[in-house]
């Protein structure tokens, strides 16, 4: 079965796949049924598929499977996929269920969330609509900002005022809540968000409002901004708080339904959902902090890549996660994916830990066309799951990246699940239309489509590395996703990278990332203070202790069980006068105490020098403090055992080589037959169930101990 571009989608393809899973033993390793060792289960839900990964904690064995996803009631797809893949009683052995979900994201994209009422400081009801005046399409006069999540009639004011230093300038007039609640009730408000000015410096008024709402009989969820974000900048914090309230009921309902279904199947362990920051939260915590789960999708792939880099001691890497519609990339330093603390979704800012995964519209389904100026363009439009690329034979007639690859022979024989093969003729027809218009051959158009897609991806990688002061040429590329391994050598060539890693299970690598996550709870608070003396040390330390004890309250004693517990603190530091800060770790001594401000200052200077190549002669200040309590889960360490297969006749296919600029015979190899230490010289095409690796002439691949392919350029003369 060959399913390289993520999502062919639609019932037919999905059924074929599911059938193939059963018929052909898609399950990669043999099960070790005996023994009571526990399992860890990861399920990542996308638009078309549920990707399932099962880890046997005793043997380290990993199984993967796919099932159809069910967008209307996503829990049904999850349960269905589990039922198909697990044998009877097996789920009872599972201790952890880790979940990646787009429920919160979809609620925002489709604007199908709760009716939220927002309470603000008098004079500031319009913060959510005023934004910061930004025109995202910089030079388009007709561009408009997205509609606020809470309409103006439901943004109501409370008289009060806290100053930047926490001092109360005007006491809270709780009486204002009576009218507000009346309006909320008559408008069908189910969730209330509260964001008062400077509440990060003094949350008393927000807390008093929550209490008063309860006293007045409001029983729905209340999101208080200082608990949600705790950071300054009222628009960004209000936006985060509103998003939290907006997605809350949908997430809560979904998670509790799923947890119940799992329990009915016999599951008795912990249910965890992944966050935008690439760690896991218990379902019941996620119900309290749903905004943290909004961008869980691309995070897990970055986490898995980070873990791979740690295992292989790769200091600097960039990911290339290519799916059906998008290319996602993330910088990884010393095994840690780059983290940001503010993201943006649908034009709305969100203050939360956020793995810095950037996305552009270049994937297997990206459509090629000729623009008004006569140039060939690729993406960001995608043929999507339906009809999909022309070669899926489901009525698509526009040329996509997948079609171009098929035409060039890069997908070898184009064998799909259950004996279905790619429809090469349709791909050729789609290319012929464009070729005729350009007066070129379909073959050369197909080459162009791949080159353009690869150069768009490379440019994105250059931008991501440059932003952190790194040089892409020094980095290792980690390529995965349905179409990532297809682009591996193209990107390596374009970016002059020395090496590319294709992990095992590359097509399901994101789901695999779920199993690498730690349980973590985190919080942050703004504290602007010059980093100069013992006062700063004391203030920072006091705040850290406060934040840790808040987290301790949030974590229940039974949480997460047996792993090592790490208490971690970070500070956002900047030069006084600058706006942007860098987040640097704070070293904690015994009793989680901060030991030295000088050391913090020094780590900031080091980080600044590294990022910008120079330092300034200016005093520094702390901006925000972030703490995290991480419960380390054991990492899967799967031993790689290639399948022992009888020597089959070696096959080859005529395919286009970009390095040689001609069509050559490519050896076609089943990846699972390659033992560790084995090496293979291109030109070759490596097949595996969920993706295809294109190894161009001039490149070699070596199988690492982990089963990952390490691809590098070999000397021509050798």
């Amino acid at each position: 079965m060959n399913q390289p571009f993520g999502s062919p989608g639609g019932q037919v393809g999905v059924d074929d796949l599911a059938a193939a899973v059963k018929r052909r033993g898609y399950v990669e390793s043999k099960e070790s049924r005996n023994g009571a060792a526990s399992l860890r289960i990861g399920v990542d839900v996308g638009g078309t598929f549920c990707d399932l990964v099962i880890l046997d904690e005793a043997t380290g064995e990993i199984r993967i499977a796919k099932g159809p996803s069910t967008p209307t009631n996503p829990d049904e797809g999850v349960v269905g996929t589990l039922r198909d893949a697990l044998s009877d009683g097996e789920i009872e052995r599972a201790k952890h269920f880790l979940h990646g979900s787009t429920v919160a994201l979809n609620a925002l994209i489709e604007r199908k969330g709760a009716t939220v009422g927002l309470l603000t400081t008098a004079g500031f009801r319009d913060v959510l609509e005023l934004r910061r005046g930004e025109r995202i399409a910089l030079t388009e006069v007709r561009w408009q900002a997205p509609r606020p999540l809470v309409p103006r009639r439901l943004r109501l004011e409370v008289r009060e005022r806290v100053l930047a230093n926490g001092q109360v300038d005007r006491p809270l007039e709780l009486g204002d809540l009576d009218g507000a609640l009346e309006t909320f009730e008559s408008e069908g408000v189910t969730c209330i968000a509260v964001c008062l000015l400077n509440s990060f410096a003094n949350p008393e008024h927000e807390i008093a409002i929550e209490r008063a709402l309860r006293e007045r009989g409001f029983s729905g969820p209340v999101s208080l901004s200082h608990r949600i974000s705790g950071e300054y900048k009222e628009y960004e914090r209000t936006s985060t708080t509103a998003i939290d309230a907006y997605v809350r009921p949908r997430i809560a309902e979904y998670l509790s339904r799923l947890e119940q279904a799992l329990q009915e199947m016999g599951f008795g362990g912990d249910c965890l959902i992944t966050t935008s920051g690439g760690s896991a939260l218990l379902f019941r915590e996620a119900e309290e902090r749903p905004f943290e789960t909004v961008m869980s999708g691309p995070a897990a792939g970055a986490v898995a890549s980070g873990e791979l880099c740690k295992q292989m001691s790769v200091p600097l890497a960039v990911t290339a996660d290519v799916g059906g519609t998008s290319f996602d990339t993330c910088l990884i330093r010393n095994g840690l994916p780059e983290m940001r603390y503010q993201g943006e979704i649908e034009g709305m800012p969100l203050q939360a830990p956020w793995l810095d995964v950037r996305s552009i519209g270049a994937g297997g389904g990206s459509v090629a066309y000729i623009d008004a100026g006569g140039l060939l363009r690729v993406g960001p439009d995608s043929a999507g799951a339906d009809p999909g690329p022309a070669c899926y034979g489901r009525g698509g007639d526009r040329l996509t990246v997948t079609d171009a690859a098929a035409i060039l022979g890069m997908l070898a024989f184009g064998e799909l699940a259950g004996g279905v093969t790619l429809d090469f003729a349709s791909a050729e027809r789609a290319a012929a239309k464009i070729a005729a218009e350009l007066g070129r051959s379909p073959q050369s158009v197909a080459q162009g489509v791949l080159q353009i897609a690869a150069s768009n991806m490379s440019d994105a990688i250059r931008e991501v590395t440059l932003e952190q002061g790194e040089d892409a040429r020094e980095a290792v590329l980690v390529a995965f996703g349905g179409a990532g391994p297809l682009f591996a050598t193209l990107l390596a060539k374009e970016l002059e990278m020395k090496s590319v890693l294709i992990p095992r299970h590359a097509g399901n690598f994101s789901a695999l990332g779920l199993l690498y996550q730690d349980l973590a709870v985190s919080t942050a608070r703004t504290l602007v203070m010059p980093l100069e003396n013992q006062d700063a040390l004391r203030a920072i330390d006091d705040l850290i202790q406060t934040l840790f004890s808040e987290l301790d309250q949030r974590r229940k004693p039974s949480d997460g069980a047996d792993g090592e517990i790490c208490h971690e603190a970070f500070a956002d530091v900047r030069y006084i006068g600058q706006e942007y800060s860098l987040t640097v770790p704070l070293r904690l001594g015994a009793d989680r105490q901060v030991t030295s401000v000088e050391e913090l200052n020094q780590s900031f200077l080091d980080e600044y020098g590294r990022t910008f190549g120079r330092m300034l002669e200016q005093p520094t200040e702390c901006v925000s403090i972030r703490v995290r309590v991480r419960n380390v889960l054991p990492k899967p360490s799967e031993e790689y055992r290639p399948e022992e297969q009888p020597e089959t006749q070696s096959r080859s296919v005529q395919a286009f080589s970009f390095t040689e600029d001609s069509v050559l015979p490519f050896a076609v190899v089943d990846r699972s037959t390659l033992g560790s230490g084995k090496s293979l010289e291109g030109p070759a095409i490596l097949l595996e169930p969920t993706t295809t690796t294109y190894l161009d002439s001039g490149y070699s691949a070596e199988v690492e101990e982990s089963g990952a392919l390490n691809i590098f350029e070999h000397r021509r003369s050798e």
Partner: protein
Amino acid sequence: MPTSTTSSVDPVTAEVLRHGLSSTGLQMSIALRRAAVSPLIYDMLDFSCGLLSRKFQVLAQGRSLPVHSGTMGAVTKATVEAVGGAEVLKQGDVLFNSYGYDIGQHPQDCAVVMPVFLGGELIGYASVRAHQADLGAKAPYCSDTTDNFQEGVIFPGVFLQREGVRQDDIYRSLLANSRFPQALAGDLAAQVVSCETGARGLTRLVEKYGLDRFEWIAERIFDHGEAILREALAAIPDGRYEAQGEIEFDGVSPDPIIFDVAVEVSGSDVIVDFSDAPEPAVGPINCPLLHTRALARISILSLFVPDTEPVNEGQFRPINVRTTPGTLFHALPPAPLYNTAPINNAALDAIHRALGAAVPELVPASAGGDFCGIVWWGEDDDGPWSNVTSHATGQGGGPTADGGAPLVYITASGLLTAPAESLEQRSPFIVRRMELSTDSGGPGKFRGGLGYECEYELLDDARFTSIMDRTATGAAGYGGGGPGTPNAQTICHPDGRREPLQKCTDKPIEKGATMVVRNGGGGGYGDPTERDPGAVRTDLVERYVSEEQAREFYPQAFGDNDAS
């Protein structure tokens, strides 16, 4: 379709290079923002980065201040010519220019130009204009200069670095002329870092193709940019479309300045005709020719080319200007040009209104017209402080939709408004209010977007410069739509006195006073009586419009047949 013989260039190679160039431009702006120390650069995009060919054609630009964006070719050319032309340049040279008539605006928007060499051969230039916090004008920000010598120190195209060696005489002279030498040093370094980033990218791309082939493909890319714009422009019926613009106060002379502008369209060629412009203003709103050209470019591009199309030389080809030397839009030294922001906005607005008659389906009614910018400074216990408050403005109603939320005026989009919580951390301010102004949007079939009000209370004595305009007439409506409300700034003194303001420079404001800034609404589009009654009712419920105004302009929502 391509207009010249470059159609033989492979459309794939051209697309790959086009993307590579635009990514290099973007990388230049990333490098600049990451390295800059002033908020005007890292937070407000008050800069532009360009990659130029040997012939000073724009190969690519980074995300830049829109009104700067059409100047980089001319700025680079003037700077190179000032030092003696391309022949005298060597690898490792860095040029600096702060002469307003070379760079288009005040000296603070100074240019750093780096010639790029490959194998000893000049292959192009990387250039950055960025707003420096201070280059020694009569005040940290000015609205009342009367010649260009009051506007900052002039370095008329000089070597800042020669073959890799910094020219210390020049460098120290520069820093010595700044009130904020540390910021200047940091931001200058950032400009150089950005140029280096651009130079590396350009070198990589030229190496890949060879210079001759690179320049040939670049021509194809220009043709592409040109074709995209021409296709859009061809939709405008041929003709001459006229409009009038107004600056109510140039900062010095009390008389309003009225100017005529016309847009002549013939096929897909556009001439923006400023030749009837009045004589130069006494105050600093005058536009040198290269700035006027940039204004014409952004005015046209903002209507016809989506933001996703990277800007290059080709897009400038169909847009020409006609001017008369020695006038407001073709100013000559020593006419002052410190504060062109108001005229940028007024000119763009007039050009759009002129085109509104030609392509009403594309042109929204006028926006509130200004950012009501105030630059503040003072000294408190922690030392000197300064900040900038600029504002979004109500957007005009469009042919198919209401004006939406306030946005920063398009000539300066990229600039962000300051959060109250950030201002209060940095400066002795309490922000009392930031609130949409009910009824501020012009009535129309599609209503103008609302403006809003801010109140800043001062906790300490301070000084400020204000560059606000458009306090008398609001944003124009279109096709029967009404005007938005005008802008206003008023100081409410602690003793109860209310002092309305105009543009002013280095003005004191005392502790306890409150500055009230009213940012105007957008104009309405189309006859208000054609507005959907349901939309009127929604406006009432959201309090975008009061019942009083609704009854006056939208009687259809209150008809007898109407239940509400």
